[in-house]
């Protein structure tokens, strides 16, 4: 090829000068970060838009709370798919922005993506939302955190139980994974504590963000006589709006959707990541050891409930507030035997009591009696 001959001595020299200049730039950058000293960069990765009225917004609100801590710089990237893309994002946060503490917030980021990157950068800290960190199995520089949001779902269920006239509740869910099933079950058990005859109809849409299917599912549920609907999808906006349009009640999820449904919004299960992230970062800055597995519910302030909407009766408020007080005192157990699944098998025997911290609940694979739906696809 003649191209080869075109490389003259001059261009080679020019190239060398360029490399030299680059070297100078990078070395001066190193000095700069060293001089900045106290500033630590923290990276957040979101699977969707960070203002989606849902999952990602809840995390972004938590990340925003860190910005007020001195010496902390927060960088964020949204719409990162649960594929190799997230590895690239993490790598670029590490290599370009010198990020020390990383929060990949979506369920599918954990295995294998975050684990792979974490194995490569052993001196950095990776904290994942929703995964189940296991000692010996996962690297020591990784960890996972999650909240017992089903406590708040139980309270939503109590409120929904009072609001429903048809005794049929609806649940629009994404995918039958343990966290989703636990929410469906807790919501149902909460409602059944008001009236044992209440049933919950579940529709799985098959994806975390499927607006058309979510609207279609909500409409189908309403056509079946469901008069309170809640959900576990990434962005509950469409579901809450559809419920409001059709004149039924809704309970929110992830963040507050109260402003979307001023008439029908009852209450909702919300994350309080600001608390979790602030705790993590404060102990990181102090140089304390970060726990690998963080869990917490209403009592620990990891989750919270939306303020009651105007349609919630005084009776419902009283009941829900009483249960909430028990949660705050750490006394309430949702999964107390005997509980049967919706096929008639006993899943929690009489006398057995699985409290919130029980890891067994994190591999839930059944729907309790009174839920109409199927875990198998």
């Amino acid at each position: 090829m003649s191209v080869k001959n075109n490389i003259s001595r001059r261009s080679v020299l020019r190239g060398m000068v360029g490399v030299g200049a680059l070297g100078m730039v990078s070395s001066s950058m190193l000095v700069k970060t060293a001089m900045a000293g106290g500033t630590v960069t923290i990276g957040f990765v979101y699977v969707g838009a960070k203002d989606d009225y849902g999952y990602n917004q809840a995390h972004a609100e938590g990340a925003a709370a860190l910005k007020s801590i001195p010496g902390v710089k927060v960088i964020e990237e949204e719409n990162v798919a649960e594929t190799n893309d997230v590895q690239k994002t993490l790598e670029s946060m590490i290599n370009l922005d010198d990020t020390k503490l990383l929060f990949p917030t979506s369920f599918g980021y954990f295995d294998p993506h975050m684990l792979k990157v974490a194995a490569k950068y052993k001196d950095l800290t990776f904290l994942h939302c929703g995964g189940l960190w296991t000692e010996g199995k996962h690297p020591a520089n990784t960890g996972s955190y999650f909240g017992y949001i089903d406590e708040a779902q139980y309270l939503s269920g109590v409120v929904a139980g009072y609001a429903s006239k048809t005794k049929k509740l609806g649940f629009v869910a994404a995918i039958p994974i343990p966290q989703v099933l636990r929410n469906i079950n807790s919501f149902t058990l909460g409602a059944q504590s008001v009236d044992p005859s209440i049933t919950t109809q579940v529709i799985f849409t098959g994806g975390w963000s499927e607006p058309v299917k979510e609207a279609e599912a909500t409409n189908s549920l309403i056509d079946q006589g469901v008069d309170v609907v809640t959900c576990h999808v990434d962005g509950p906006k469409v579901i809450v709006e559809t419920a409001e349009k059709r004149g039924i009640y809704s309970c929110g999820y992830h963040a507050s959707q109260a402003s979307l449904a001023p008439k029908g919004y009852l209450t909702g299960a919300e994350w309080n990541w600001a608390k979790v992230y602030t705790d993590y970062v404060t102990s990181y800055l102090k140089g304390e050891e970060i726990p690998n597995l963080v869990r917490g519910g209403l009592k620990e302030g990891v989750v919270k409930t939306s303020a009651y909407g105007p349609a919630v009766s005084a009776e419902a408020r009283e009941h829900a507030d009483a249960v909430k007080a028990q949660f705050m005192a750490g006394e309430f157990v949702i999964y107390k035997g005997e509980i049967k699944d919706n096929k008639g098998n006993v899943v929690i025997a009489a006398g057995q009591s699985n409290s919130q911290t029980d890891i067994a609940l994190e591999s839930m694979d059944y729907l309790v009696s009174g839920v109409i739906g199927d875990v198998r696809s």
Partner: protein
Amino acid sequence: MEAVDLGLWSVPLAVFAGAIRVSTPFLFVSLGECLTERSGRINLGLEGTLVFGAMSGYAVSYLTGSAWLGVLVAGLAGSLFGLLHALICNMPKVNDIALGIALMMLGTGLAFFLGKNYIQPQAPNLPAISLGSWSDLAPVRSALEINALFIIGLILVPSLIFFLNHTRWGLMLRTVGDSEDAARAIGFSVKGVRTFSTMAGGFLAGVGGSFLSLYYPGSWSEGLSSGQGITAVALVIFARWNPLYCFYASLLFGGAGALGPALQAVGITSGYYLFNAAPYILTLIIMIFSSSSTHRFAGAPGELSVTR
């Protein structure tokens, strides 16, 4: 609201309602693409146009308070994308399919970038026309809440057929699509006609997108389109470049999309992934049975790059 148990009857009702609710974006995009392809060009970028239309329609509706203005702007934005496609395709040796894919990414990316501030707010939605007031059943009344855009789409179908088959301009468009040489010999401007038809196609696709954000599901989010635009482009081939068949195919896809949730709602809970895949399985089956290795698709415009 009184509860009436419709039992299994609610499935056909939901499919019917879904056919109308879900089909409208398919209908607009496929009618638009039909027009473009009849002139001899494929615009695969309509997925991007749809997403951009959804975003711009929602943004304008939010900013001005008028949903119809949003629809108009979505259409105009769509025709700008069409114009871009046409102008680049008018240059020599440009592959319309590759360009379409590029424009799909551009449209989606631009919509995500510019639409950041419009995910949160609630914009005024398009009104629906209630045709079900005769019924006491809430599900029936809800199923017969028909959106004006669907009715406009319904009127567009015969109008397009009339335009294509009974007007001078329609004849010109078809001539350009079937034989460039013949069109040139008569003295038609091939590029001009194709530019017009791609712009018109883009306009309809933009309007189709605004239906998603302004009526059903009725808000802008980045996951709003689950490939409706690209599916609609495929529908045109499936519908043999005939606007009437485009209408049927859109209804079929809308109805099939509603089947999964409706079955789960009545308690048929197993196999929902399969039911959710119904529209795609349906397409595959029809494509297999309608394809032939010996002769090309009946009704295919002669100048179309995929069938030439």
